[in-house]
């Protein structure tokens, strides 16, 4: 269907908006960051819809699509954070904000706290949590798709939690720490869809503060929010940083509990290189 759209059937991107019928008939398409242009495309599609025959509005009887998708690895009962990141500083483009989700299984998420958290306890957050955040989520994709870091490149990162209170089963805690990611561009994550063809030296350091509440009985987080503010250096092929924009420059992140609705089940951008055994590759 996308091959019928604004980019045609050639190689390269298929990004954009498409309005279509259930049988795959294209009604309108465009790739625009302008809300007015997007609205125009939608209205064109709705007008074209009025001209379609009923048969075009119905799925073919033999309809089938691959049912194995990354969403199948959604960590039910675990911790799902919705992230936002943007440039900071006096010249920052406030119009660029990126979103992603960070996934942790219930077992992994338990690594935010000790086994029997008591007020005043300080706990070093587990390595799997720190690595996942520093490698795959505290990255410079504000303006475009970027590359992750390898665990060895974020080894100096550390987060700690301090229990503020424990009321019944509710454990409230504060988060603090620092992430440090640095690479000379040597690729350390094996051969996959992200493997670059050249080196992109880059780094990203942040100071992290936040808080959360964990329900020991329900074994789930009822609140979680972190802010990470730091500095980026370097660029990658597709992250929208021109060669003259390699920093150091300020960047900020917010990570919050994701809402419980279907759209929050969209997988993390780097799910395929999380390297977690519970992630089932659908390909």
């Amino acid at each position, binding site marked *: 269907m996308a091959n019928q759209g604004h980019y045609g059937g050639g190689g*390269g991107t298929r990004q954009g908006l498409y309005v279509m019928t259930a049988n795959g008939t294209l009604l309108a398409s465009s790739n625009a960051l302008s809300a007015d242009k997007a609205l125009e495309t939608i209205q064109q599609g709705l007008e074209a819809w009025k001209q379609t025959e009923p048969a075009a509005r119905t799925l073919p009887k033999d309809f089938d699509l691959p049912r194995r998708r990354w969403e199948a690895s959604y960590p039910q009962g675990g911790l799902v954070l919705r992230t936002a990141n943007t440039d900071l500083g006096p010249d920052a483009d406030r119009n660029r904000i990126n979103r992603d989700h960070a996934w942790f299984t219930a077992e992994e998420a338990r690594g935010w706290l000790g086994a029997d958290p008591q007020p005043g306890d300080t706990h070093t957050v587990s390595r799997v949590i720190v690595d996942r955040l520093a490698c795959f989520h505290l990255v410079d994709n504000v303006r475009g798709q970027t590359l992750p870091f390898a665990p060895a490149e974020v080894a100096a990162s550390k987060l700690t939690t301090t229990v503020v209170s424990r009321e019944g089963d509710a454990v409230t805690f504060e988060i603090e720490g620092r992430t440090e990611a640095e690479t000379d561009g040597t690729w350390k994550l094996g051969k996959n869809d992200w493997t670059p063809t050249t080196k992109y030296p880059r780094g990203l350091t942040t100071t992290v503060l936040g808080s959360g509440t964990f329900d020991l009985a329900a074994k789930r987080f009822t609140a979680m929010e972190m802010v990470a503010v730091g500095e980026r250096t370097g660029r990658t092929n597709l992250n929208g940083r021109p060669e003259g924009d390699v920093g150091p420059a*300020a960047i900020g992140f917010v990570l919050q509990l994701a809402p419980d609705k279907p*759209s929050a089940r969209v997988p993390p951008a780097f799910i395929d290189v999380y390297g977690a055994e519970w992630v089932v590759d659908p390909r």
Partner: protein
Amino acid sequence: MGRRGLAAGALALLVFMTACGDEAGPRTDAASNENGGLSTATLENYRDRILPTPAEAAWEEIDWHPSYAEGLRESSRQQKPLMLWVMNGHPLGCT
């Protein structure tokens, strides 16, 4: 057409595809001393600066289907057109 009109007029769907980054023109970013400024006193201010405003995040209130197949089935069932939004990275955020 407002957001409500959009939601009522077309089913919404997002699909994850790996694609290229944006083609935005060059910009310069002055190095900032903000990176060391995060503290309990400044946390809320930073949070509010980083998060999209409610107006910017209005599209997130739409009940997007995260997969193409779900959207197609709903489109057929409800006899409504399907809007497919294809982006790189997190498909719910234009990167």
